[in-house]
């Protein structure tokens, strides 16, 4: 027990790697064994994070469960881990969604071992970003997460579909999507890497806490330029890297492609966790390292956020592909996260900022739940019908009443219905940003309105209306959602309801961290 307490974060971070290795050693021809082992082992980090959640002291300032190991002595970079209320929430989300996604992947029959192996590696990559307190380590894990995801999309993505690049040039959609995802993220992180190197060279350390202190206090000239100029450039380098990941309009077009082509569980993790990496970058790096720049450019960030909210909703409403519709909804919802962050950056130190930031962090968690749920539900129906085209469905409710109920429930969470989780966070963001960024908030309401439109469109086209007889009889007969799939949805739905009805249990942790940080 003592050992566990001392090394809790390392255990959570690297257990998935161990699990991946164990999965690798299993016989290839026993997929069922592999599935259950991967699922069972992925529960371990989850249980550890739950334990972490209860051991965590929300009222205590600074980072907790800190661990520091020498990693690259020559560069003075170390494996420095630690959690506060913000990262704790994200760690919990990650370790919860991974087993859920693995359980959702039981229907994957192709190269199960490699699939599970990559998935577990992915978990480590994501956790590393949330736990790192060292910029170099942060960057390493930031890139580590990319590779498994690339292969998951590229190898296990949907086989059908082509994408025309320009006249006459067509590529397979999943190749296109995976490459777009990979190159876009990497291109974005080039600037980030440069900026990180700048900081590292300047202060001979990559430790986030030390850097924050020294960098923000730096004045004078640097590289022959005023520090303010250098800071602004570095600020935008950070922002672009994270904005692509969030993704913020107009950097968002990789997302619908990647989400649409990824396997179901891949989309769940992509929407549920990977997008949060970008937002987390804003919270953990951009705001602490660049308080002045963030405040100065808050308007620009808010503008991009509002564009994401409005155009995300519009684009989602304009879809004929169910999965793409859900994918665009992520752009819409993550826009609220950025809006909250922008408001918090602008009004730093006020109550408005705290509320906006609370809303942003909670929105990250909430979107993780509802988006993962929505993608899973799209996957459920796709597995049965092999189509995602909304026009091919219609009136399926009588055939799949349980599925329909769950879909409506999850959709309503995504729509932001009061009583479910999405409302709480959206309300907090709107409340926090209204006095700070009034016009932007008002325009964002247009997006909120169209959130309703696209969610209802999805329900209308899939469940309601005259029954499409094609799915009612014979070999195409649509089967009801099965027990395993309900088990996948159950924890998500329970949390959606729990946060909606009584958000204080999670918001209290976030709130304390936010109050102390900003």
């Amino acid at each position, binding site marked *: 027990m003592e050992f566990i307490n001392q090394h809790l974060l390392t255990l959570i971070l690297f257990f998935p790697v161990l699990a991946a290795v164990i999965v690798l050693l299993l016989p290839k021809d026993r997929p069922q064994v592999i599935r259950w082992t991967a699922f069972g082992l992925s529960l371990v980090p989850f249980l550890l994070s739950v334990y972490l959640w209860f051991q965590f002291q929300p009222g205590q300032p600074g980072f907790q469960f800190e661990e520091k190991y020498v990693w690259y002595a020559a560069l003075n970079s170390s494996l420095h881990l630690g959690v506060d209320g913000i990262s704790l929430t994200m760690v919990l989300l990650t370790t919860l969604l991974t087993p859920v996604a693995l359980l959702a992947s039981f229907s994957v029959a192709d190269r199960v071992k490699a699939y599970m192996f990559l998935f577990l590696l992915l978990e480590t990559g994501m956790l590393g970003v949330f736990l790192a307190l060292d910029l170099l380590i942060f960057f390493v894990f930031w890139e580590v997460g990319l590779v498994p995801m690339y292969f998951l999309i590229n190898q296990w993505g949907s086989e059908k579909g082509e994408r025309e690049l320009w006249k006459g040039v067509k590529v397979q959609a999943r190749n296109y999507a995976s490459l777009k995802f990979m190159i876009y993220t990497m291109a974005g992180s080039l600037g980030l890497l440069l900026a990180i190197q700048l900081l590292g060279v300047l202060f001979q350390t990559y430790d986030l806490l030390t850097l924050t202190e020294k960098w923000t206090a730096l004045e004078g000239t640097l590289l022959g330029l005023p520090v303010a100029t250098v800071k602004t450039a570095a600020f935008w380098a950070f922002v672009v890297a994270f904005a692509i990941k969030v993704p913020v309009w107009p950097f968002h077009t990789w997302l619908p492609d990647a989400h649409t082509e990824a396997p179901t569980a891949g989309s769940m993790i992509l929407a549920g966790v990977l997008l949060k990496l970008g937002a987390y970058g804003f919270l953990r790096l951009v705001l602490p390292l660049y308080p002045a720049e963030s405040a100065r450019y808050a308007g620009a960030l808010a503008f991009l956020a509002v564009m994401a909210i409005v155009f995300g909703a519009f684009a989602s409403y*304009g879809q004929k592909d169910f999965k793409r519709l859900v994918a665009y909804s992520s752009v819409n919802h993550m826009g609220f996260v950025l809006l909250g962050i922008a408001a918090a950056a602008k009004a730093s130190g006020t109550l408005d900022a705290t509320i906006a930031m609370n809303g942003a962090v909670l929105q990250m968690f909430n979107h993780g739940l509802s988006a993962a749920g929505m993608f899973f539900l799209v996957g459920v129906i796709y597995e049965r019908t092999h189509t995602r085209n909304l026009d091919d469905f219609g009136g399926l*409710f009588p055939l799949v009443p349980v599925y329909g109920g769950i879909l409506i429930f999850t959709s309503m969470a995504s729509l932001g219905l009061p009583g479910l989780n999405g409302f709480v966070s959206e309300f907090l963001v709107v*409340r926090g940003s209204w006095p700070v960024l009034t016009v932007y908030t*008002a325009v964002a309401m247009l997006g909120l309105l169209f959130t309703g439109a696209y969610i*209802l469109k999805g329900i209308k086209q899939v469940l309601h209306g005259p029954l499409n007889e094609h799915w009612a009889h014979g070999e195409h007969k649509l089967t009801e959602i099965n027990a395993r799939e309900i088990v996948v949805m159950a924890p998500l739905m329970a949390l959606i309801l729990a946060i909606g009805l009584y958000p204080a249990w999670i918001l209290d942790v976030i709130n304390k961290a936010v109050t102390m940080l900003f």
Partner: protein
Amino acid sequence: MATEILIWLLPLPPLLAFFLIVLFTNKNKALSHSVAVGAAGLSWLGSMIVFVRALGVEEFGKHAFESVINWLPTGETWFQIGVRIDPLGAATLFFVAWTVLMIFIYSIGYHNFGQPAGDHDRKGLPPHGATVTDAHGHPNDPGAGKHTVPSVEPMYSRFFAFIGLFAFGMYTLVVSNNLLTLFVGWEIMGLCSYLLIGFWYGKPSARNAAIKAFMTTRIGDVFMLLGIAFLYSATGTLTFSEIFTEETLHHLATLSTPILGLSGAGLIGLLLFIGTVGKSAQWPLHVWLPDAMEGPTPVSAMIHAATMVSAGVYAVLRMFPLLSLDPATMSIVAFIGAFTALFAATIAVAQNDIKRVLAYSTISQLGYMIAALGIGAYVAAAFHLITHAFFKALLFLGSGSVIHGMEHGVLHTGNHHVDPQDMFNMGGLRKKMPITFWTFLIGGFALSGFPAITAGFWSKDEILADAFAHGHWAVFITLAVAAFLTAFYTMRQITLTFLGEPRTEEAKHAQETPWTMTAPLVVLAFFAVTYGWVGIPEHFPLLGGLIPNWFHEFVGSTLAEHPEAAPFSIWPLLTSLGVALGGLFFGWLAYRNVKSPAEDKLQLPVLKNKWYFDEAYDFLFVKPAYWMAEKFTYLFMDRQVIDGLLHAVARFSLFLGHVFRNYFDKPVVNELIGDGTANLVKSSGKGLRFIQTGRVQYYMLASMVLLVIFAVLYYFLLA
């Protein structure tokens, strides 16, 4: 039990019923409706206890029941939510509890509980009837003994689950002590409204109506959310009792905003009021309510007459102290209310669908209340809200009963082309359905404001008196005209439906509905008459003072400043007598001999088509929005511009790669440096290869010669 705890518990039974039915009992119809009705009964009982206890409190307005808990942490403090029952809340709770319970009971009969399952019934479509064989002989039926009876709703349990959730939303809204939970209840009702309008989701019309309702009200809701955010950030609280302190109100009234020169209070009030415009279906967001009649009739009665649409008015009543701070906002409110009252009444005159007439009537009556609030007649609006809830629920349930009776006739004749909701297919139903007729008559007279005995008279009269007393002439005249139209179309409806002779075979075979449907009608009819007596003005001729004006005293005490009752004047009384009786008389006169729509002179296209609002909105908003979404945002901006830009970058990179490959790598690196070096070595090797004879003696000779040469050179040059 402490009253506060009881209030906390009020919304819970229906919510519990929802979960129980969804998770466990949905296979068993009897169990499901027992759970739902039982839950509604429990909430009703609790509400009555709270109501009675509230009556017993001295100066209840100042000593309301209130209790709070911490809900959201915000920085160092907490956002608290809680429950509050003050006089307004208690009065609202009273009518909500009654109407909800009645409608729950009514639904059992309406959905044909106890009838056999339909022959071809399908989930998502209304039941079509079942063929049974029994001794009940029908001489004109060729298959002897076989006949068609109404069939039970296939999604019977689901209906009760939904209305349970709805009741939860309504109770939550009423007991809230703050705007946020009020909004929670508000939106949950919105969801239930969506689910229930689209209850028969297999019908495209129902499906579209559901979406229309949700989206239209959502327009209001997002503004309301902004209003809430504004209010919260301006005052730091959303709790009513904390907002309505003199200090806070003063702060809000002096806050300036850049929009329309409104004060902070005015702008917040306006934003919140837009939410009401959506929810209470006021012009210009009224378009959803008539379409919402696609839902089952109990839904129309409960959601679209008695409770949810009333919630909009309730919210304005709640926020009245804030709204009344800014005269500009009040003028807007009064204008929208009065305009809606008249505008909707004109449309109602030309509708032939029995439920649609009532739908427009509801819009019109809600406009009445809003107009009353706009001119500051707080108590009158609350009074009309409650009386209207009773008589409009009664009218809707009555119309449901009529439709049910007509459906019986349709099943009997088997002619499914006859629309059982079209009033021109009815006539003479008073003999076939006496209970329905008499209760409907009471409801209709209450709606028209039939003098002295009906509740509608007293509440409507009070509004007119208030408008008259405070000199709001425009509002007074508009409302008076609207009241005339109301009486007119009500009498038209009664005449077409119940009076005269049956106009179709189906109407001849209509049947009275079972007791589960008629009993709620009787109960509501009782209130439609008697509830008016609690608010008779003191100085009213003859009747005034017989019963104290309890309502005014009680509800008026909700406000910090007790509003003055309007002084009595004979003119508004005469006006309301004149328009009510005149409207009823002309309605009867004009329609007593009308046989078909062709003979109806008021079927003007512009009224028939609801002043073309649906078409205009479709053209102005719906189509552009879809174009904006699909064509502009997705296909043009994302696919063409942004992806195009990305692809251009990709293409440029490819081009750059191509240039590098073809003009640098290939010629310079490959050919010049790479191949060039090799070629040089090769050719020089070729040139030198003659000395490579393979004969060791040549090599030796060569080395000797070189040695000699170097020796000579060494000797001459260096030595």
